[in-house]
């Protein structure tokens, strides 16, 4: 890619990427910490996550302002336009991921005093690990402008959905075994749902990266495997 004739334009685009990378790093960190807070029943860590989410919100606002200013002053075209609009979309998804991590941390606070069922916790850990891996991959795909990598992330979301489905069933069974499990199970269920949503936002980012690089949307429909909305106890 040739450089812009106007250097400050080039610098602004680079700054945008830097901020996205920073925001992505923070989102990864928060998601990891929220799992830690849940697993280790660490209210201190949970509080930290809730506070750190503010940093993500601030970055989102900064990026938004920069994007608006660039559209007004530069009238971006072609790949620059896709770059700038892509950054705006990605920043929204990352902010949502931060919110979801914060929500998991809040639930960790709520159930800090209860004993956690081991097999269910390991299910949640696997979901978070996979979600973190996906997030890292998609941020790399953005930084490297790698549409194929983004496409892979997009396809792999089905795995998170599958894990969520089986966790959902396990939690239902656990609740049926003993009504005293309902409180913690419900919190874990929402936690799992949040991770599943993180996966969806990661998928959104993958679509944005694909559009940004190739100039058109991913053609086929993503295999949607979250079946919990139609699952009943039978």
């Amino acid at each position, binding site marked *: *890619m*040739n*450089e*812009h*004739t*106007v250097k400050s*334009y080039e610098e602004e685009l680079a700054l945008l990427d830097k901020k996205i990378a920073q925001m992505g790093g923070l989102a990864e960190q928060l998601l990891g910490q929220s799992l830690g807070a849940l697993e280790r029943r660490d209210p201190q860590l949970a509080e930290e996550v809730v506070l750190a989410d503010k940093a993500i919100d601030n970055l989102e606002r900064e990026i938004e302002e920069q994007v608006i200013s660039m559209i007004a002053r530069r*009238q*971006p*075209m*072609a*790949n*620059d*336009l*896709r770059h700038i609009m892509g950054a705006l*979309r990605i920043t929204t998804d990352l902010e949502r991921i931060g919110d979801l991590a914060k929500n998991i941390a809040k639930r960790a606070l709520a159930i800090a005093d209860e004993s956690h069922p081991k097999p269910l916790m390991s299910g949640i850990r696997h979901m978070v690990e996979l979600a973190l891996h996906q997030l890292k991959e998609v941020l790399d795909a953005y930084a490297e402008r790698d549409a194929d990598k983004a496409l892979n992330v997009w396809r792999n979301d089905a795995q998170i959905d599958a894990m969520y489905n089986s966790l959902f069933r396990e939690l239902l069974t656990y609740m049926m075994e003993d009504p005293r499990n309902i409180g913690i199970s419900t919190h874990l269920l929402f936690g799992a749902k949040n991770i599943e949503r993180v996966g*969806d936002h990661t*998928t*959104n980012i993958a*679509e*944005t990266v694909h*559009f940004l690089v190739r*100039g*058109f*949307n991913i053609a086929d429909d*993503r295999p949607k495997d979250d079946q919990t909305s139609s699952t009943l106890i039978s």
Partner: protein
Amino acid sequence: MLKMPTLDIHKPDAVPRTDTKVSANDVNVFYGDKHALQDVTVNIPDRSVMAFIGPSGCGKSTFLRCINRMNDTIPIARVTGKIIIDNEDIYDPSLDVVQLRARVGMVFQKPNPFPKSIYENVAYGPRIHGLSHSKADLDEIVHSSLEKAGLLKEVKDRLNDPGTGLSGGQQQRLCIARAIAVNPEVILMDEPCSALDPIATAKIEELIDELRRNYCIIIVTHSMQQAARVSQRTAFFHLGTLVEEGDTTEIFTNPKDKRTQDYITGRFG
């Protein structure tokens, strides 16, 4: 899940272009030894605006001037290839060039009204082409042309004042009224707004948008934003060749050729 907006938002604009009005085939232009335009082939649709963009000296104005044979007026210019307007070869030796230039009107970079009254500026063409049979006829043509050019309201009480006394933007609209008065089918515009302020420019752009319902409009512009705003199709010229041509939205969001991308994003050279 949220989807990226598709590019369909501009499709309504693309609908009116029905058939090809101007068709160029392997057009080459030489100025003496200089090969100014090489093998340009393009179809220009009727009832729509096509913009030619590209850096200075890329051949876009040269090509524009082929379409009403303005290059004939340059002694060293030589044009080869074919340009067809409505199934008629405009370089056919039996063709009347004066008639052609009535069918293919032109508006220039600098407004160039005749040193005559506003009325006479518009009446001149229809009169020499014998389009009116009476004074009332001519009055009607002058009024409707000024109306179509969006100028009537501003000048109706001073039609006998000199055209050169109008503001730059008004003069340019007067020139458009003059072009329209002889009932053209195609209107060529060579950077029609480069001498105008933003408000006068907006008025011309609004006018272009109105006119495209009835005419085939081809505009050369240095302002990419203007090309993006007013045209339905865009052609990018570079070093005497037509690099890429397509739907305007497509060209400005997802150009296929790297040279087009570098040019419209300001990365050239």
